[in-house]
């Protein structure tokens, strides 16, 4: 069962890779399409931002009417392949988690490897939900699958540890409550950073910036929609994260005798909470620019990453369950 789980993770990484490449192909074909669009503006093409965006109107080698159609069709096929591959990868990912849990005979959240695997699954599952409700956001998938490939491969290559039962300190029903909510909130925050970064690039692009990272955003959905998705995801995840931290405090009171003791993990959870609270306040304040607020969301995610990797690797504390010693 354990070997099956490991194999499923490998296949999931491959599927994410396929999805990422397909998204990239869609992107690339989209660019051809945009170039043609600039030459022959037609109504069906996404006009304003792209057509007037200073893209050189190079004459198309083939008949302009044939290329956009074929190219657009190919781009759409690549996009659909990417979504299909993402869904397949998510299914494999879920299978890996379930088999891992069966092999371990417990919830698969006992160490850093299992934790990252679950967080990334929550992220991709939430992404599929978002995609189902807002198909127009599909092109964000390139960034999401990139994050997936990086994180899941890191988990597999660096963090992997064989299955062992839980230490008594983790053997509590609070384990399920605290860790599941932390995992869930982390997964949504992970997904939330994708539109946040997308928004920052797209907003720059829409303001006419044409230097490197902004040009990537040429094919992204509109900035306003990305920004609203960023807020919706964070507003959804923040109370869950708050609950998870409170549940952790209740558990810490029972296990360690104090609800809050500034253990490194707790300190960084506090930092993340404060930064995300700052984001929500900044987002609700008209005088704060939206991109400043969105930077706070990105910063919040960096603190989450720090808490996951930095604290487990560099600091020792009561939360040292990473299994990397």
């Amino acid at each position, binding site marked *: 069962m354990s070997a099956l789980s490991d194999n499923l993770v490998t296949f999931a990484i491959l599927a994410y890779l396929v999805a990422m490449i397909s998204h990239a192909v869609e992107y690339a074909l989209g660019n051809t399409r945009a170039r043609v669009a600039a030459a022959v503006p037609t109504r069906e093409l996404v006009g304003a931002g792209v057509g007037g965006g200073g893209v050189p109107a190079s004459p198309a080698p083939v008949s302009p009417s044939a290329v956009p159609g074929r190219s657009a069709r190919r781009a759409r096929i690549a996009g659909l392949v990417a979504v299909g591959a993402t869904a397949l990868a998510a299914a494999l990912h879920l299978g890996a988690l379930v088999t891992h849990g069966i092999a371990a005979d417990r919830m698969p959240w006992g160490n850093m490897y299992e934790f990252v695997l679950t967080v990334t699954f929550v992220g991709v599952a939430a992404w599929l939900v978002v995609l189902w409700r807002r198909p127009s956001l599909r092109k964000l998938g390139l960034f999401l699958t990139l994050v997936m490939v990086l994180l899941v491969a890191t988990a597999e290559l660096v963090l992997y540890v064989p299955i*062992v*039962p839980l*230490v*008594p*300190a983790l*053997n*509590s029903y*609070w384990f399920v409550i605290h860790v599941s909510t932390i995992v869930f909130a982390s997964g949504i925050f992970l997904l939330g950073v994708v539109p946040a970064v997308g928004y920052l690039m797209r907003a720059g692009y829409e303001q006419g910036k044409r230097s490197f990272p902004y040009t990537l955003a040429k094919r992204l959905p509109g900035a306003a929609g990305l920004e*609203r998705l960023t*807020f919706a995801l964070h*507003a959804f995840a*923040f*109370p869950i994260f*708050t*609950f998870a931290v*409170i549940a952790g*405090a*209740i*558990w810490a*009171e*029972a*296990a*360690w*005798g*104090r*609800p*809050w*003791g*500034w*253990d*490194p993990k707790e*300190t*960084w959870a*506090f*930092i993340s909470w*404060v*930064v995300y*609270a*700052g984001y*929500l*306040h*900044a987002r*609700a*304040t*008209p*005088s*704060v620019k939206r991109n400043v607020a969105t930077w706070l969301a990105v910063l919040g995610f960096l*603190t989450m990453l720090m808490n996951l990797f930095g*604290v487990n690797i560099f*600091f020792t*504390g009561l939360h040292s369950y990473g299994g990397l010693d």
Partner: protein
Amino acid sequence: MTVVDDRPETAAPAPRRRPNRLLALLRNSWRQLTSMRTALILLFLLAVAAIPGSVLPQRGISPEKVNEYFTDHPDLAPRLDRIGAFEVFGSVWFSAIYLLLFTSLIGCITPRLRDHVRALRSRPPAAPKRLQRLPQHAVLPAPAGGAAAIAEVLRRRRWRVEVRGDEVSAEKGYLKETGNLLFHTSLIAVLIGVALGSWYGWSGNRLLVAGADNAFCNTRQQYAEAKLGPRVDSEDLPRFCLRLDDFEARFLASGQPEFFNARVTVDGPDEPTRSGNFSVNSPLRLGGASVYLLGHGYAPVIRYTDRFGRSQVSDEPFLTTGDSGLTSEGLAAFPDANVDPRTGRRAPDEQMAFTGIYLPTAPQQAPFARSEYPTERNPALNLVAYRGNLGLDAGIPGSVYQLDQRQVRAGKVKEVGTKLLRKGESWTLDDGTKVEFLGTERYVTLSVRHDPGSTMLLISCGFLLVGLMGSLFGRRRRVFFRVMPADPADGSPTAGSSLMEAGGLPRTDYPGFADEFAQLVAAISGDERATERAGTDRDGSDRTGVREGTE
């Protein structure tokens, strides 16, 4: 936290009266402090200020690591210490940040609380003249009952409704501000809970060896470390005694712990005599304190028979060294050894001490330095005997778990020999005296704590969460309806009946308002097709008019 930029111009001061400079300064500082921008900066500072608390060792968590840091960085450490870097969360600057933040918070929510109470008691405002200028607008056939029927539907949908003639105003979503205020008030309550805990709480840590002779009572002197809040006296500690009857530990084949349980007897004036169990994750809850299991180990029972034939027994706990096999180190000291029973004369140079390494599962062959498994499969005690003046009479505080190395260096204590003892074995030293390894007792490391703020903390965290949900997911919005006679020239199928004009205004960011509005007016009008008509009406413009000044 209020937003300075959005605040409406304050009423012009009374004409021709020079404002008091000091008052103006105070007022402006207060306004600055309670502004959203300041609050955001303070929040950010709070996050930044917490970072050193995770990077540098902290006295409250690991004092031994702080000492280590002092040895490793003799130049840097005292300087860091001066700015409180080893006690970040109690330092002046950290406290300053959060106290300012909370002052800002109080300064912000107090007027908002007043405003909100006023808003809760007031009626929805009159409909604006031109409803078509609102973000949502629709004209539909009016229901038969006119304004009263509209109001009825709205009330059923839990809107707050006010009917003024042919006009209906309704508002909903007060929960957002209620939740917001509840959240921020709960934060203050959380801080108070923490403060109560640190003022009136106390805690003590100690080792407890199994057996009736080793029972301890809850007084300050009985703890190896005790922390009493500033408002707690030693006499305030509840009086009870604890005796460890049994400790059970189970491990996996790899040595990883699987299960712990400590069985104790509680006794004392403030607690009924009873037996109790506790383990990791499930502390023993007493009336005025909770007992937590922090660790466990072995206390070798060592008997020494001196040259006068008198025996003494030591069952001092040996401290675990941190490996999974529970290799433990400790000291069995016999300062009263070799006292002549007839004269009672002490022989300070004839005191005995044994330092040792205890291996619950010793390896099959040497070196006998590390235990292979945490339970006693092949217990062995590797003892080093010392004779001389242990330095315990000098009155200098020293560890009871280590031999005073100063005495060894000074040549006052001399090593006599080394021997590996199995359970029940004895060792006769060069002077004919005898040391025996009788067996072991289990010991546990305990933390006894009382935190009177924890209940308040828990309750306020509950309110905090409820408030947070209301604040994030509540949506304040207004709708207005005006019933007017149908225009006969319109030629609508409902000619003859009256029409209603509806307008909607989301007062917070609410992307789904267009749909809700469309559904609402359709339901009121009783016209299903109207859903589509109203839905397409000015779709996507739902963000206009969103002006949320406060959070």
